[in-house]
């Protein structure tokens, strides 16, 4: 509705260069600092290339891609794990982030303090967050140790099993990721016109109905965009899993980007790592386009 109003405005015609000038700094920065690096990844994906074996570098065309698609079961396994990871992370963070935003949007004594505390997991550095969770999961320093010292003998060691390690990593990342959703949703809630709630009050709508019919529809765009951003971000998030589980046990938590890091950063097989990266890139590209289409469609539907 808003953009149409502008489209007919005569101002727009006079300032046709306007939007381009506005996005110019972002475009320049991205072109200068991201385009070339991404280009080199594409380039190396056509090579057998390992820094530690300079004599063995050669152009091999699509060979890396062929191996990846047809001869590397690990590619498909890690892809499956990545999907599970992204879905678990984004849905849990969204649900809890939304709930937290609703709570923190209410008026109560000590709200400022509560908001600051809730924000804290996001503020601490990655290495610290991971090490703290490692200590918590470690039977000789963590929950098991506390239980033992309290007299309840325990060998609780979540990282020792495939499912335990996966959910252990999910929980730690959810802990760090909730504030992202909570803050963005909280900020977005502020644009919901108060009149909507007043009218609903008059109509006798209860709190849940107000949430379902006013808050949620208003937040739809924000939720679509934040979940997309978060999905992309979590897809490529390696540092927490890398330190917490190392992709184990036995590869049970090795996501695609973690596999990339193993291949490429161990400087053993940068060419193949690049091909895996491009695969991840294309998957995210297609996913994003579809997701945005879906978002647009659902918006039209809501208006109709």
């Amino acid at each position, binding site marked *: 509705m808003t953009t149409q109003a502008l489209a007919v405005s005569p101002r727009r015609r006079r300032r046709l260069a*306007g939007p381009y000038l506005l996005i110019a700094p972002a475009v320049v920065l991205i072109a200068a600092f991201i385009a070339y690096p991404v280009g080199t990844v594409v380039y190396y994906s056509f090579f057998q290339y390992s820094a530690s*074996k300079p004599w063995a570098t050669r152009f091999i065309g699509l060979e890396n891609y062929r191996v990846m698609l047809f001869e590397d079961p690990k590619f498909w396994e890690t892809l499956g794990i990545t999907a599970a990871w992204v879905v678990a992370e984004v849905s849990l963070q969204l649900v809890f982030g939304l709930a937290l935003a609703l709570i923190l949007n209410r008026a109560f004594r000590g709200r400022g303090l509560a908001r600051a505390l809730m924000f804290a997991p996001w503020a601490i550095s990655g290495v610290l967050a991971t090490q703290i969770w490692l200590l918590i999961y470690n039977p*000789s320093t963590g929950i098991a140790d506390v239980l033992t010292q309290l007299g309840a003998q325990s*060998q609780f060691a979540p*990282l020792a099993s495939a499912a335990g390690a996966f959910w252990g990593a999910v929980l730690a990342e959810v802990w760090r990721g909730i504030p992202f959703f909570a803050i963005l949703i909280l900020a977005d809630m502020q644009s919901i016109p108060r009149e909507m709630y007043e009218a609903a009050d008059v109509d006798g709508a209860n709190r849940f109905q107000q949430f379902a019919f006013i808050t949620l529809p208003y937040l739809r765009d924000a939720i679509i965009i934040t979940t997309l951003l978060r999905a992309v971000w979590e897809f490529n998030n390696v540092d927490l899993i890398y330190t917490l589980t190392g992709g184990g046990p036995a590869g049970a938590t090795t996501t695609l980007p973690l596999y990339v890091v193993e291949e490429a950063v161990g400087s*053993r*097989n940068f060419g193949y790592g690049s091909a895996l990266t491009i695969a991840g890139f294309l998957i995210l590209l297609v996913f994003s386009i579809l997701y945005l289409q879906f978002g647009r469609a659902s918006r039209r539907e809501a208006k109709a």
Partner: protein
Amino acid sequence: MTKRTLLRSMTAIAAVGLLGGVTACSSGGGGGTGGTEENPVTITFWDNNAGPDRTPLYEELIAQFEDENPTINVEYVGIPAADAPQKYETAVAGGSTPDVGIVVGWMVSSLAAQGALEPIEERLTGSDLDGKIADDSLTAAKGAAFDGELYIVPMTSTPDTLWYRSDLFEAAGLDAPETWDQFYDAAEALTDPAAGMFGFAMRGGAGSTNQLLPVAYSCSGIDSFFEGGETTLNDPANVECIQRFADMYNVSTAQADVGYGYQEMVTAFDGGSAAMMQHNLGSSQNHIDAFGEGVVVGLPMPAGETAGERTIIAPTPEGPALFSESEHPEEAWAFVEFLTSHSANSTWNERTGQLPANTDAREDAWVSENDALATQIEAISDPSSTIVPTGLYLPDWNGILGEMAAPFQSLLLKEITAQQFMDEWAEKINTAEAEYREQFGD
């Protein structure tokens, strides 16, 4: 507005840029020529394992060096251990290396192959240090390079050590784990899951495979890593040893061990929930902090059959390397020389509890007072011991170790057998070795 804001932000970027530009030039001093006391040459030095213990140690040594060499300034850069390899690789690929950096054995091949390191044998033989670096360390250092050249002057090497709690062994009336049979007996006897006590803390996670080589060869007694271009890794004797070792998981070890890296393993051991642990000498200070002097004893890896007759996997060397892009190689070499000299090498190893590479330092009194260290030196110099060099020179060596970490967890979780595990490992090594021979001949 757009233009003005743009302009303003550009000006700000430019201003910050100017500021950064001024501070960015770090390697001051004159180009190429020697420095003077008023205008000393600055060389940069990278520490690959920065932290509360090493950083102050290097700063002390640097101060001492600068006192002795007033025309040279050393700029210390501490790099967190976990990311040091990536930092070195990025700097080499990006063309911005230090003058001197500590390089661990398994990184030598890769960095040298990229032409980043200067061969230093000539410098060494021409210096006062000639003959002062122990042969075992020098051989190991050359064995770490793809072309057999010397690229690091070893400060230390890290033989695998079996640490055990002598108090628990005594209380249970057990013999010290000198042989593998004694090791397994003790591990079983000291395990009491109900009390949260296990015989052994196993490294099942990051870095596990590196420690498996000493387990396999000390137990099997096989005396060479390659035979006729093929590795002996999947020799039946090695397979049997690894199977027995893996079978101990979740029986004489805690279930959590499958994910343990170095820190978790040490935390479990020093937290009192395991009676034995395999690591190197580097963790000795942790054990003293946790239990006091003399409680934790360090032995070389157990012997296969008879106590005393050991097969030892050649310890990985570590030491300063001279980077070939250095603009001040003479000054850089002077610092390398200093770090590996008697006094500095002695100080460094005494403080870190490691095995000195400098032969004079090995004679120092503190060495004989450090039991774990003295036993290791004894074992390494014992004529009845067999030292087994590995394939550390293979550019793929470390990559393969990393790739085998997940299969080892599968082995612990009984998804595969030791035979399958060792076959897979051997196949990777054989491929890498064949490729290497094709490139460089035998």
